[in-house]
């Protein structure tokens, strides 16, 4: 069967790609569009390393088909920093040492950004529940939660 020809918006830019039906959005991002920031930890929706937003909604890109996203807006970790200027979340993750191996980090950052867009002043409880679908084998989560709280405070100051 012929490949699907898809046009979508990725990090604000129009993109076109060809994909097979079985290819996931994560496959397309990493292997076709060379956006390798999104990671594959499990390919089953459990770890959140592949988190992106689709029309503003946080999803696991491993559970979206590439051919589903025609006309849709996708935001990935590559769209987070503005040139050399890190997003406050990225900056705070560094300062709080909220990462070790870093595999989970793009997913945590994308998910945390989606949280702060909806809830600028989240409680620790809200942060932990919102991020329950992001797994980290290294940090023990506390530093991640502190970094998100701190970034939220920075962003509220503007």
């Amino acid at each position, binding site marked *: 069967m012929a490949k699907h020809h898809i046009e979508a918006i990725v990090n604000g830019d129009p993109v076109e790609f060809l994909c097979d039906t079985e290819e*996931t959005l994560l496959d397309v991002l990493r292997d076709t569009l060379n956006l390798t920031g999104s990671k594959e930890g499990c390919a089953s*929706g459990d770890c959140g390393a592949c988190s992106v937003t689709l029309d503003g*909604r946080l999803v696991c890109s491993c*559970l*979206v088909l590439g051919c*589903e996203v025609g006309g849709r807006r996708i935001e990935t970790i590559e769209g987070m920093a503005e040139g050399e200027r890190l997003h406050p979340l990225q900056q705070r993750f560094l300062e709080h040492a909220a990462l070790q191996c870093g595999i989970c980090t793009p997913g945590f950052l994308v*998910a945390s950004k989606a949280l702060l867009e909806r809830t600028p002043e989240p409680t620790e409880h809200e942060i932990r*529940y919102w991020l*329950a679908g992001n797994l980290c084998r290294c940090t023990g989560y506390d530093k991640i939660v502190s970094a998100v709280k701190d970034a939220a405070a920075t962003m509220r100051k503007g």
Partner: protein
Amino acid sequence: MRYEAPESVEGAVALLSAATGETRVLAGGTDLLVQMRADVVDPDLIVDIKRIAETRSITEERGGWRIGAAVTGAELKEHPRLKKVWPGVIEAANLIGSTQIQGRATLGGNLCNGSPAADSVPALIAAGAVATLAGPQGRRDLPVEDVMLGPRKLALKKGEIIVSFLLPPRPPRSSDAYLRFIPRTEMDIAVVGAGVSLSLDGSGTISGARVSLGAVAARVLLVQEAAQAIIGSRLDLAAQQRLEAAARAACRPIDDKRGTIEFRTDVAAVLARRAALIALDRARTS
């Protein structure tokens, strides 16, 4: 593997009815894509129903609410009014997976995946929700408790899809609740789930009730005896004990690493009682 995303219900039904090989409807994909990846299913045709407006909308209808089968958990939660009228349905839908899963998972998918442990199904059954199906012979309505026949077995015929669910009009002093037991707080499959919906008369006596239990039998159960046990009462201790006994008697669970038969039966009784108390409390203040 072919992929189609029709924009009408008729288009989806025509594609599914005409297909010769294995077909699958695609809603949020949070079950389907996992199963495809694990080689449990290998469809020849996938029909994505998310571009059909009817499956994606929430509308008021004859005093009740019609919820499209492909509305996501996140959209249900954000709806300004549903949560007040059907807090149990919304809390059940919002227990499905993580934030990411909520962004995609749908009520139609949760039901049609055919798991006896599906979290939103006991809440929908307790609510008296009716599924509207569309197929080659046209449309028909089926109470949610009649959709699932057993694990992975549905009453849907070839070419049929669920288009939407209708939640009935709500009398005053009515509410619902859903509780599940899992060994941790998030991201796990229900060992037992219990949904209760009830209405009170002016004096605070229960005038109507529906009780549903998940993960304690081959399909999600509507337990009429449990509802009868509390109708006419104010959920005093004796009524609570009758409710527990009826819930216990309805259980035909499996024994597995997630819970023994005895444990599941005990927990079903406790959750049914607690869900009824929460629903009662909500109904009093609604």
